[in-house]
């Protein structure tokens, strides 16, 4: 047992990789109930009237991509399938090109036209000032955008018809891996009454539950589990979405089991070690 407790950490890393590799290849299907907060978000997107406007803010960089891309794709797919107008934004400087690629790819798969059905508004360096500014005029904060590779005046785009400020937006869904979600709550929801929903990484999601409870956030996707839930909900109603988070959940299930085994082994080893030490030194 002592040998087990003093095992080189490299062996543990190797076991982790092998378990995950097996999970990724075998793809065991783990049936899981859909969490209430994911269903809330699905319902809130489902409640937006046809041609209503939704902001999809992909405020994350490469470090959170593996957790949040699946959420962004599922939400975009759902919005396009419901014929909603989508305004893409990214307030994370390192995530701009990824956010733009995601919205373009999903729009192309859903046969949506740039400038008519959606637009990628792009990046602004000061998130607080930008959200506050959007409270009075979206077009002033993002005066020009790229549409089909050409610079166009935002105000002239068909997708922006009737959309002056945040009050004209039916819903904003933000995907984030940082505490920036508070800026949308502080300056979007509290100031203008904008309905908010959030997809968050596991690292920050705990801090969002009080806002979900108070109704300031109307739906929440919790890390890969939330993304997998949302994928299932969207796939049931609107086929054509590729399962990405669902696949990760299969691997994560095996990782959970492995973690539990490691914790159990370490605790049993610790207890046995303590008992042996007490027997060797009764004083």
């Amino acid at each position, binding site marked *: 047992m002592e040998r087990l407790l003093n095992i080189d950490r*490299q062996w543990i*890393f190797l076991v*982790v*990789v092998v378990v*995950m*590799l097996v999970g*990724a*290849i075998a*793809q065991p299907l783990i049936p899981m109930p859909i969490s209430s907060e994911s269903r809330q978000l699905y319902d809130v997107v489902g409640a937006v009237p046809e041609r209503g406007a939704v902001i999809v803010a992909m405020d994350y960089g490469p*470090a959170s*991509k*593996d*957790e949040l891309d699946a959420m962004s794709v599922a939400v975009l797919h759902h919005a396009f399938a419901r014929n909603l107008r989508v305004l893409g934004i990214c307030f994370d*400087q*390192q995530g*701009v090109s990824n956010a733009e690629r995601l919205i373009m790819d999903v729009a192309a798969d859903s046969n949506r036209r740039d400038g008519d059905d959606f637009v990628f508004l*792009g*990046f602004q*360096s000061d998130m*607080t000032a930008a959200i*506050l500014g959007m409270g009075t005029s979206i077009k002033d904060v993002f005066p*020009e955008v790229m549409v089909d590779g050409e610079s166009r005046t935002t105000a002239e785009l068909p997708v922006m018809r009737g959309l002056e400020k945040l009050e004209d937006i039916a819903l904003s869904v933000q995907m984030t891996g940082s505490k920036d979600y*508070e800026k949308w*709550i*502080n*300056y979007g*929801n*509290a*100031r203008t009454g904008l309905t908010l929903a959030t997809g968050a*990484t*596991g*690292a920050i*999601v*705990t801090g969002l539950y*009080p806002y979900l*409870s*108070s*109704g*300031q956030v109307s739906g929440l996707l*919790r*890390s*890969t589990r939330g993304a997998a839930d949302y994928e299932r909900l969207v796939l049931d109603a609107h086929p054509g979405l590729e399962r990405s988070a669902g*696949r*990760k959940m299969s*691997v*994560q299930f095996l*990782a*959970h089991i492995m*973690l539990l085994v490691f914790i159990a082994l370490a605790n049993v080893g610790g207890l046995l070690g303590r008992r042996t030490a007490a027997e060797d030194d009764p004083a």
Partner: protein
Amino acid sequence: MSTSIGVWVAALLTLAMFSFLYRENPVYRVAEHILVGVASGYTVLLMYYRVFIPVVWNGIAHPKGVESFFWTFLFTVLALLFLAPFVPRIGWLARIPAAIAVGYAAGQELIAAVQARLFPQLLDTVTAFDGASGAPAVIDALLIVVGTLSVVFYFTMTFRRTPVLNGVARVGVVFLMIGFGAVFGNMVISRFTLLIGRIEFLFGDWIHLIPS
């Protein structure tokens, strides 16, 4: 195996990063420096093309009007004052934009703290039992009220604690520990997801061992 140069570069750099799990080594350090360099370079270019050119340069060289020119010019000058410490004699000028930035941020944050956090969260706590029907909802509401009060008591340092208040504060510690445990658990799972992503990339996109 992938024939894309980009995938190969990304895969080799990922492996270089993972080599740190064995021990600190020059390959890891090279990859780390590349990461920092690329991230900095990308950020500088992004700021140049998406902030400096459209906001600062166009705002001064091709202004929409006198007012627009005035504000852009004023804030550009204020921003430049941040560089004043490089000339020690006028270094104190940097305090002007710093004071404005701090004042602006504090003013915004104060309103936000009251409007978006203090009042709504307080309201949610005092109305926790409102409309709570059924045992799970009542237990949920009870946990919110007991948890909030006991944690607040734990952080109350302004008066001497009686044994009863100490007991309440100890309950607060239990709530805090459960909260930290939840944060830690979510953090671990979050990191596992990142690892799964990298494994899918290495064994899927790179060597095509994982079926897509």
